[in-house]
């Protein structure tokens, strides 16, 4: 985290319409690591696409990396579990593992929805 400007955590995705990654603090750069076309990988890809379209339309970029083709890249992002979704931007780096079937947790993991939202919802 930088001192002067901490990255926005609860920035609503629709707040800014500019989709330039350099100037858009709400721009999401995501990498999805998979290993071959397994059931889990395919499910993760589908789930990610759906979530991004629903919550980050126009403000995201997904790169899918198949480690069977590029095993070298596994250590760079400290990949152990497959599939792993890495949020490169905005900082800080976040890792989400699993097939992303639990949408709620994916949103929390990507800081799209704050962790403490859940209990508040219940209170309401």
């Amino acid at each position, binding site marked *: 985290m930088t001192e002067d400007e901490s990255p926005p955590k609860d920035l609503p995705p629709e707040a800014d319409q500019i989709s330039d990654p350099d100037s858009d603090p709400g721009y999401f750069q995501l990498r999805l*690591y998979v*290993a071959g076309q397994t059931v*889990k990988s395919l*499910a*993760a890809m589908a*789930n990610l696409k759906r979530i991004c379209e629903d919550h980050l339309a126009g403000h995201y970029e997904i790169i899918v990396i198949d*480690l*069977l083709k590029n*095993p*070298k890249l*596994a*250590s760079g992002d*400290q*990949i*152990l*579990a*497959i*599939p*792993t979704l890495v949020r490169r931007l905005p900082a800080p*780096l*976040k*890792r*989400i*593992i*699993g*097939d*992303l*079937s*639990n949408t709620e*947790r*994916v949103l*929390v*993991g990507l800081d799209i929805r704050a962790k403490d939202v859940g209990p508040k919802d219940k209170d309401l």
Partner: protein
Amino acid sequence: MSPDATILCTLPKAPTGIVGLDDITLGGLPAGRPTLFCGAAGCGKTLFAMTFLVNGITQFDEPGVFMSFEERAADLTANFASLGYDLDGLVAAGKLAIDHVRVERGEIEETGEYDLEGLFVRLGYAVDTIGAKRVVLDTIESLFSGFTDPSILRAELRRLFGWIKDRGLTAVITGERGDGQLTRQGLEEYVSDCVIVLDNRVQDQITTRRLRVVKYRGSAHGTNEYPFLIDGQGISVLPVTSSGLMRPVSNEIIPSGIFGLDSMMRTGGFYRGSSILLSGVAGTGKTTIGSHFVDAACARGERCMFFVLEEGADEICRNARSVGLDLKQWVERGLLRFEASRPSLYGLEMHLARMHRDLDAFKPDMVVVDPISAFRGPPTEVHATLLRMLDLLKSRGITTLFTSLRTETTEGEGTDHGLSSLMDVWIKLVDIEANGERNRILYLVKSRGMSHSNQVREYRVTDSGVELIEAYIGPEGVLTGTARLSQEAREKAAAKRRLEEVERRRREIGRRRDALERQIEELRANLEVEEEEARKLLAEEEGHEATLAVDRAVFAARRGAAE
């Protein structure tokens, strides 16, 4: 790999190159299979693992992958540089791959089903890149802190170890010791081919590291707990098993370097490879005699090691110089090596372990341990340690001199940790206090396999070394020191007196003979005079007779004419 190895021959093994460990495991770790090293923190698990890899690369040309779940590659490199391992160089040479796997739960959100294929990919990639034969996973249990679902992890670990076996990789997996089981997460359940437990025990404030092979499928192995050593030269494990009594003996005789001592034995010295116990109270010159032995051996061109437990090497050299022995020259020529350490610095096992390593490295012909009485501890343990030390030295045919301090309480036929019966030669140094002085005498209590003097010798430590003098044994008893000297002086005076008496008598006889001879001369002269006179008388008598006869004839003629 293993299916073919069902022939009588043992399991294929991957030597670790760690001194001693390969002996205990009869060749090394099971090749193509995973081995678990477990122990509490600070036991040296990572060191064992890295040594296994580095030795594999440098000694057996087997590249290796180090997958670290704890330390970063840079830290590993820095830590192992102290042991002289150039990890960066090995990495650059394409022989070693280090992959740091960082597991931080805080960064990971679990959102559904997953597996650890990423780990497989990384390991597989590293292995393929350098053609690795050996793999280390240190410490894979860290994964359990990173993932919430242990059941997935367990399934994946099982798959991982299966995969390692399928690939024919010899793997070392480390694990933290857990409560009630060998590792926290029960890794031994998955890695069941070979399990080695490391231990770090503190007893009486002295730490001893130990290693035990808990199991080794398909192979015999040493079952004891073996002490091991971590120092600047890496690890050495010491299979100090008490060997049997079958060992080659030598008939070669080597002199002690102390002239009078050698002549106490009919052979003129000790057998090579024998063990000599030199016991005496403080100040009897044990170390000095030991220095003599060393000096003599070095002068013959033999290699010597001096294990000193109470003094420093320089002190020994300086003190030896005062009796005319120059030990420093042998150190400089590489024939003599001192190993000085306080007995309390390590446990007994560790002393033995270090000695084992030093013997292997220096290969001496003679060893002096000064003194064994410095080893303190429970008597049974001390005895067992010394027994193994003796075995260790004897099995290598090393001539050994042990010195032992006898205290007043163990006076008499002191037990010397019960070792005296195991020794081939026992020289006892005794301090005799009499006439206001202390004198040193020496007995050869025993000397196996040779006839030897049963008599006491007095010895003196002089500027030119230790000298043995035959003690005075006579009607006055055994005398030493000035008592011996004054007795000797008295005897010398008496002898002189006797000599003078003889001379005087001889002169007396001469005189008497002269006198008698003179008398004989006189008598003889008298006799001659008398004889002369007698002869004269006789001649006169004869002349007279003749005259008479003539006269008678004349008379007769005259008478006849007239008639």
